[in-house]
């Protein structure tokens, strides 16, 4: 029972991270029907900016004095950086191909994914970069026998805040309404005066901001980042998006949580060396039996 609870806690943490990445996939897919392969690399870039910020502050002696400020700065800078990266990516690789075939667009995205991950490798080296987590990983408490670290709480609460923020943005603001409209019908919304290109860019930016936050969270959780860390989580998050029903925000969060849980439980109870396989198996099973995903039916509702 205790291990069960413990796995539950770990699964929720991991699931929250997958959910954040999956949101970016699902939003971009919803609006331009593109699997943004470079999304995993944006997530990794966020992790790198986090570690760069933290080690800079540490080397200047600021981090020991103000650890919370350091954390806030790391998140903020990573999110800003990835927003700029996303705009550059969309301008360079996706906008010129707006009218091209789906295959061209996918290949362009794949090229950018390879380009970014190798670029990060050349910039920051092939080895893991360690987060200065000794400052943060001290606190923990127990609930019914399961150990919950403060980091896990931060990650879960942080992800929750971002998801609520996204929900408010999409449903309550004019830009959010523009996004929903463009996702539903690009031509019609353009006729009504919505700037499609701008809306698409904003979608990319929001997805990337969430991925950047997830990158810093993963860095804090595992204690290090690597240039190719975006590859596997990227596929899993996409599996989560498909599981939830692609284009559906609530579905992406739900899918992320399920994938996180399944991975942790499978690693704990079945075979840990095969933990990466389960997400793919779920993906294939979903495509077999319910290709629209869990929330697939109410696509019109919260589709972005």
């Amino acid at each position: 029972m205790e291990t069960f609870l413990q796995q539950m806690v770990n699964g929720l943490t991991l699931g929250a991270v997958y959910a954040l990445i999956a949101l970016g996939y699902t939003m971009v897919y919803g609006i331009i029907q593109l699997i943004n392969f470079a999304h995993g690399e944006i997530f990794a870039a966020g992790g790198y900016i986090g570690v760069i910020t933290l080690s800079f502050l540490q080397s200047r002696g600021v981090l020991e004095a103000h650890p919370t400020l350091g954390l806030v700065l790391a998140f903020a800078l990573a999110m800003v950086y990835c927003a700029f990266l996303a705009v550059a990516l969309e301008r360079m690789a996706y906008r010129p191909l707006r009218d091209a075939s789906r295959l061209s667009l996918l290949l362009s995205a794949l090229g950018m994914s390879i380009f970014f991950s190798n670029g990060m490798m050349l910039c920051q080296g092939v080895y893991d970069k360690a987060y200065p987590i000794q400052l943060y990983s001290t606190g923990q408490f127990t609930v019914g026998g399961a150990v919950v670290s403060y980091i896990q709480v931060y990650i879960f609460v942080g992800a929750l805040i971002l998801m609520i923020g996204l929900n408010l943005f999409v449903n309550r603001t004019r830009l959010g309404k523009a996004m929903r409209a463009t996702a539903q019908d690009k031509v019609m919304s353009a006729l009504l005066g919505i700037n499609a290109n701008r809306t698409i860019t904003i979608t990319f930016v929001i997805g990337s901001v969430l991925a950047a936050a997830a990158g810093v969270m993963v860095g804090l959780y595992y204690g290090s980042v690597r240039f190719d860390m975006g590859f596997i989580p990227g596929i899993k998050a996409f599996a989560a998006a498909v599981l939830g029903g692609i284009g559906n925000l609530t579905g992406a969060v739900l899918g992320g949580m399920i994938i996180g849980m399944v991975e942790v439980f499978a690693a704990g109870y079945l075979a840990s060396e095969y933990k990466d396989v389960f997400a793919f198996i779920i993906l294939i099973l979903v495509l077999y039996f319910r290709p629209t995903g869990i929330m697939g039916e109410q696509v019109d509702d919260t589709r972005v």
Partner: protein
Amino acid sequence: MRKELVKFAVVMLWAFGLLFPMLGAQIGFETFTFEWSRLVRVMGFVAVAYGALAAQRAVSAHRKRGHRDPGPGLAERVPPLWGWGILAAVALAFPWFADNYARDVAINVLIYVALGLGLNIVVGLAGLLDLGYIAFYAVGAYTYALLNTHFGVPFWLALPIGCVISAGAGAFIGYPTLKMRGDYLAIVTLGFGEIIRIVLNNWDRVTEGPNGILGIKAPGLYYPKLTEAGLTLGHVYLKNLTCLYYIALVIAVVTIIGVYRLDHSRVGRAWVSIREDETAAELTGIDTLRMKLLAYMLGAIFAGLAGAFYAAKVRYVNPSSFVFLESALVLCIVVLGGMGSIPGIILAAAAIIVLPEVFRDLELYRMLAFGGAMTLMMVYRPEGLIPARRRRLELHAREAFAEEEGNA
């Protein structure tokens, strides 16, 4: 002009903002230093690259009216039979004028020609994106490795078995996903490629895990031999690179002919129509699921063929030869060469295998360059280096028609 300069400034500022933390920051263990020299060099490179692209854009805008399409590629300027004849002569004579190192590289080129053409069926003809293609190569290689080391099955017998098992794997993975739209296939195949690699890495009892399988026999040459026991089969193992080169050449040629015949068959036209518009293809009576599955399985068969040969050539397999980057490399060959274009893919395979051998110092930049080239090709020249004629007309038909109307 002023507008251009402002744009240039914005791009440079943007690039600086993106590059400055990534390139400059040097993180050690609790240390942090900043390095400017690398940043300055890369910024210089960005400026030059931007200038070149801007100039290219200006030139092509200037010639727009007189500009028809990229023009007939090299393949069409050289009379086709002559071109193929010269290529065949060079390929046949090659090992007699080369050292072992060059022969080894040439064998790799031939393996990648076969892989590239096999993937071309899936990506270039049927328009399905397969990102786990190397998994079928792995299936072929491990099939031969396991059959040979455990049961002593000879290469020539393992070759068809490897193909059948690869095709089976293709059907297994293709059937559920091909019912979906094409882009789900990309991610499922990506996942499948990873599954195969993880299984190979962890299923120690069968695959020996990361250590790989040693002691695979080279292809043998069998001949009848008269001994005291009567007429038996004697054999020699063809370990030397010249023999292996010719086997690779046969595999590559079989692939070339097979893909050519498929492309110009009823099936090939069905694939193209699926690529162009699946709904329309379905309405004209094409069984799209069956055709897509066929493309996928045929692609897998050629990969299995190449894989079995690879295992026989290296006489050792381990999972690190079958990573995602290999799939990406094969895809690069197809995209750079020109989807659907056989001469283009041969050229691209040669370039992508030989260039890194020549520029050993730039090894690290290899995948960066290929990734960037893939996007650049999609944006500026989606038909590839040597475009297939059909493809070029598709991509530039509008310009050609517009011009004809203008002339009339």
